[in-house]
């Protein structure tokens, strides 16, 4: 299944991560688990950004953590540059880790406050035995690459603002010249006025270095801006995946459509009308997902088949645009259809 051609950096096949629910000191007898990630497959090529979106608790962050093997998977396979790394032990993983790095959401929690910026950015080089006489120069170059000054290496994280700290985190992630970055909500913790500059930096780094990005975010406007392709997750599953245009302009899964309709329009002359799509209720618990289609409990199209048969994630209307819905249709096709919910 895994092919190494056309610059594919990452391939994930049927990835599963279940967290067992423990009560007290012993695991519960029923073997119940939070099914955070349940059969997720995707691939990312060199220079490409895959945006991973969904509500909180849908499993998008867990997916990112399992890919870099910060969290052990329950099932499925992870291929990096065609190598199946799923069964690798820590020693075997070490060279693979040079190829993929992660940037965390909170730049206040992800930098050691007692270490200088130079130490933090140089740490990956130290760990991999690559920090030699040229180390300080290398660190200075990395800091300049992310828009900081070379002599910022002497300073400590608390001397920097949130946006600058996130740049330090990005410099650290770049130290080993990776091919893939997992960006887990990289600007969500930042002030609005500095998000744009960090986003611009990430785009420039991608162009200059040919990096592949897995961009995890709940903010569809940002995902629209950075992604080549977009995957939409719901309760541990990808429900729709395609190019940015397919997902954001002609979405065919009801959840994607509702998610897009919920984004407030920054134009007061186009306030949401009363007959827009509004999802009712909350997502069900991932420890006890509905039978069949997991979205059916909030879906206005749900029919008997939705409870009985889980819809496969396959190309249904256009090639390359896969959707896991028994009744996919674009918004245009839907306009005259009955069943739209009004609020």
């Amino acid at each position, binding site marked *: 299944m895994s092919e190494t051609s056309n610059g594919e950096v990452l391939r994930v096949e049927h990835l599963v991560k279940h967290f067992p629910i423990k009560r007290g000191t012993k695991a519960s007898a029923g073997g119940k688990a939070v099914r955070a990630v349940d059969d997720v497959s995707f691939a990312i090529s060199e220079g490409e950004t895959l945006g991973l979106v969904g509500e909180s608790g849908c499993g998008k962050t867990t997916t990112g953590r399992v890919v870099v093997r910060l969290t052990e998977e329950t099932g499925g396979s992870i291929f990096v540059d065609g190598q199946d790394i799923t069964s690798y032990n820590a020693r075997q993983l070490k060279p693979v880790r040079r190829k993929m790095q992660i940037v965390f959401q909170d730049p206040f929690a992800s930098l050691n406050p007692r270490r200088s910026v130079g130490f933090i950015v140089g740490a990956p080089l130290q760990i991999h035995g690559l920090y030699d006489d040229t180390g300080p120069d290398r660190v200075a170059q990395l800091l300049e690459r992310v828009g900081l000054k070379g002599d910022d290496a002497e300073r400590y994280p608390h001397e920097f603002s949130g*946006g600058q700290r996130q740049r330090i985190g990005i410099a650290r992630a770049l130290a080993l010249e990776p091919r893939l970055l997992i960006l887990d909500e990289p600007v969500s913790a930042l002030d609005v006025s500095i998000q744009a500059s960090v986003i611009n930096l990430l785009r420039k780094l991608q162009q200059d270095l040919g990096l592949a990005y897995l961009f995890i975010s709940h903010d569809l406007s940002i995902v629209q801006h950075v992604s080549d392709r977009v995957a939409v997750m719901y309760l541990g599953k990808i429900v729709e995946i395609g190019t940015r245009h397919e997902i954001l302009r002609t979405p065919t899964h009801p959840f994607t459509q509702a998610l897009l309709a919920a984004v*407030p329009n920054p134009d007061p002359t186009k306030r949401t009308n009363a007959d827009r799509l509004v999802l009712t209720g909350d997502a069900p618990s991932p420890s006890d997902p509905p039978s069949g289609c997991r979205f059916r409990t909030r879906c206005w199209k749900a029919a008997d088949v939705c409870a009985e048969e889980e819809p496969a994630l396959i190309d249904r209307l256009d090639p390359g645009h896969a959707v896991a819905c028994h009744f996919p249709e674009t918004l245009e096709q839907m306009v005259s259809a009955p069943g739209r919910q009004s609020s």
Partner: protein
Amino acid sequence: MATSPTSAGVAEMAEEVVLAVKNLTVEFETEDGVLRAVEQVSWELLQGETLGLVGESGSGKSVSVLAVLGLIKQPPGRIVSGEIWYDGSDLLAATHGDLRAIRGTDIAMIFQDPTTSLNPVVTVGSQISEAMLIHDKGLSKKDARDRAIALLASVGVPSPEDRVHQYPHEFSGGMKQRAMIAMAIANKPRVLIADEPTTSLDVTIQAQFLDVLRAAQRETGASTIFITHDLGVIAEMADRVVVMYGGRVVETADVETIFKSPSHPYTLGLMNSVPKLELEVHELAAIPGQPPDPFNLPPGCTFQPRCELGQGRSRCTEEVPELRELGSRRWSACHFAEELEPGFMARPAEGLEIITDASPGETP
């Protein structure tokens, strides 16, 4: 500046002012020195409107509202100067008892984080009832309970007869936030304050919340102050907008005016820097630099070090720009606000590529 931002406009329009903050300056004593949180802040809330207070963290957008409710702890806080007028009296001069009578009845608040704002060991119904029983001694417990059920139903909590007996942990985030609305409107307030009420919610749940809040506003007729950093939410909800930066009000205008032609370079920069779902651009127009250090605010205009309009002109670094009226109900604290007009907004950023025709500012 003799008048506050909207008082002149109000006199002309003869709109009723429900709540007015005038020249409020608040400081906090901290280990690192004195922090001036807001300086000379003035705004007015008109009857029946939704006033959006926009700003980033540290801009002081919540401070004036906390002062309204008497929730600034002194010390370390210190109200240096200012007045807060509600119902003919200055709330800053009000006694503790007077404030207690107003809080939760006349002026009610919906906080950002429903998880920490609800008492985890008291049922949701009891918390809503308590809000009513405190202010209405004649109300029986049963009547309060019945009214709590009706309130939960009105904010769209399913099976409220059962939910009223549940504890906050049995509610999801969106449901807790609805319960917070129910509690806030329990006493039919005249003023509803929502402080970043949707920041911790998913967009899907946020959309539900905004619908419920709109319904609650219609039902109670309450004037609303909506504090947020999210321009999209402001565009959805607000009638008028107050933009704050570095502890000062930098711009005030009607919502359509401010989105169509902002008259402060910070507002303009903020609107241009945010990616939009309908608009595809190669590069975002980022505001250069960092938000100001509140301990060490720049001289003159607080936005001047990041400003592309000022271009280092000496007036910007030497003279604090006062909020001045530009036109009907438009106020800007920029020395060179006129240079932003007309159509500065329409200037396409480099590489701007409009894919759909749904770009902001366009009218069909």
